[in-house]
C-alpha cells in the first residue's frame, strides 16, 4: 500500500474483482496511438502470417471474412489506467488463422499498417485467447480504434492488441516492438501490473 494522501477518500469504489491493480473503469472508449490514424481500404487490405521458415499465409478481405468468426465479450485494460468491461467484438480466432500454419516458433510480432509493431509469445495468441477483430459493439471497427481489423488479446495490456493489423511474423526469437522498446513492459500482464520495464 502506498502512503496515505491526506484528505483523499476516493469518490468511487469500483474496485470490482474484474479490475486489475491501478486501473479505473471507463464507459467511453479512449484512444491511444502514436501518430496519425492510417486509413486502410479493405479493397487493398491483406493479412499475412509469416512463419520462422519464411512461409507466408495470406488472406484478402473476402477470404478473411469467409472464415468462421466468433463473438467474444471481454474486458480490456489499457496501460494508461482505463479499463472497459464487457466489450463485445466479432473476429476470427488466431486458432483458426493458425490451423494450417506449420510452426515451432515461440514468439510473434504483430505488424500494423502505419509501421507499429508489438511482440508477444505465440502461446498467448492460441487456445482461445486472441482474435483478429473487425467489428466492435455490432458495428464495423472504426479506423481510430484499429479498423478494418485489429488484434484482440484481452488478457494483456491493450497496446498488445495491435490496431490496423497487417501481419504476424513468427520467430524463434523475441524482438521488442514499438512501445516495448520505449520503456513499456515486454509482456504486459495487467494482473501483475507489468506496465513498464522492470515491473
Amino acid at each position: 500500500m502506498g502512503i496515505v494522501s491526506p484528505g483523499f477518500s476516493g469518490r468511487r469504489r469500483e474496485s470490482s474483482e474484474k479490475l486489475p491493480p491501478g486501473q479505473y473503469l471507463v464507459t467511453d472508449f479512449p484512444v491511444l496511438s502514436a501518430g496519425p490514424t492510417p486509413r486502410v481500404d479493405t479493397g487493398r487490405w491483406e493479412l499475412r502470417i509469416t512463419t520462422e521458415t519464411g512461409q507466408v499465409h495470406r488472406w484478402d478481405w473476402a477470404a478473411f471474412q469467409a472464415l468462421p468468426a466468433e463473438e467474444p465479450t471481454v474486458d480490456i485494460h489499457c496501460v494508461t489506467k482505463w479499463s472497459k468491461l464487457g466489450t463485445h467484438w466479432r473476429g476470427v480466432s488466431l486458432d483458426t488463422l493458425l490451423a494450417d500454419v506449420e510452426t515451432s516458433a515461440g514468439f510473434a510480432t504483430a505488424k500494423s499498417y502505419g509501421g507499429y509493431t508489438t511482440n508477444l509469445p505465440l502461446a498467448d495468441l492460441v487456445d482461445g485467447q486472441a482474435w483478429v477483430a473487425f467489428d466492435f459493439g455490432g458495428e464495423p471497427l472504426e479506423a481510430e480504434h484499429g479498423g478494418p481489423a485489429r488484434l484482440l488479446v484481452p488478457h494483456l495490456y491493450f497496446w498488445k492488441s495491435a490496431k490496423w493489423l497487417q501481419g504476424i511474423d513468427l520467430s524463434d526469437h523475441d524482438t521488442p516492438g514499438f512501445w516495448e522498446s520505449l520503456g513499456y513492459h515486454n509482456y504486459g500482464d495487467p494482473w501483475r501490473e507489468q506496465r513498464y520495464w522492470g515491473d
Partner: protein
Amino acid sequence: MARAAVLGRLTWRVGTVAALRDETATARTIVLDVPGWPGHLAGQHVDVRLTAEDGYSTERSYSIASAPVDGQAGPPVVELTVQRLADGEVSPYLTQTLAVGYPLELRGPVGGWFVWNPDGPGSTRPVLLVAGGSGVVPLMAMIRERAAAGGRAPFRLIYSVRDPGALLYADELARRERAGDGLEVTYVYTRTAPPGSGQPTGRINAATLASAGWPPAESPAVFVCGPTGFVEAVADLLVRGGHGTGAIKTERFGPSGGKP
C-alpha cells in the same frame, strides 16, 4: 542530469508539494520537490497514485509541464498542470484539496516517444506544436526546454482553446514570444475570442495549419496533443497537407482523462 528517455525500473517516489499555482479557474500547476528524481525529457509524463486511509488507491497519468533543466541550481523540480474534470475522481483532489507540504506519490518519467530533445538528432529542425486545450502541457515542457537549453530550432505553437479564460500559461507564452528568439504562437478560439480582437472563432483547419505552421518542405517535427477528436482531425489535416506520417507524433486523451 540524466537524459535517457527511459531509465531502469520505475520506482514509486514520494514528492512534496513545494508550491501551487492556479493557471485558470479549473487548472492548477503543482510544483513538486522529488528527491532522487532522475531527470526527464520534455514531453514525458508521470503516474500519480493516491491512497485513501482505508487502503483504496487509484492512479492517473499526467504530463510533466516543466523543462528537464530549468537553468537554476538546486534540487530537481517536477511541475504538473492538472485540468479539473467535473466528474473526475483524482483531478478534483489535485486541484482543490492538495496543499503545500502534502506528499504525493509518483513514478516516472514515462514515455520515450512523444519527446523533444534539444541534444537529439535533428534538434535544429523546425518544430510545430499543435495543442487542444490542456494538451498544451507537454508542449509547454518542450517550449521551456528549448529556452533553458538555448535551443535554436524555430518553434511554432498553434493553440486551440475554448475562450481566453481557458488559456494555460498565457502570460508566460506572451513573454516568451516577445523575447523574439524563435517562438511564434497562434491562438485559435473555438467559442469566444478575446473581446475587441475581432478574431473569428472556429476550429483549426487546413488554412490555419498552412499559415501558422511550417511547409512540409521544411521537414518540421510535429507534435499534436489534445482530446482524441482534436488529434484525429489535426493529424488528418496535416497528412492531407503533405506532412509525412512519420514526422507527426501524437498524444491523445479521452473524456475520461486516460492519456498515453
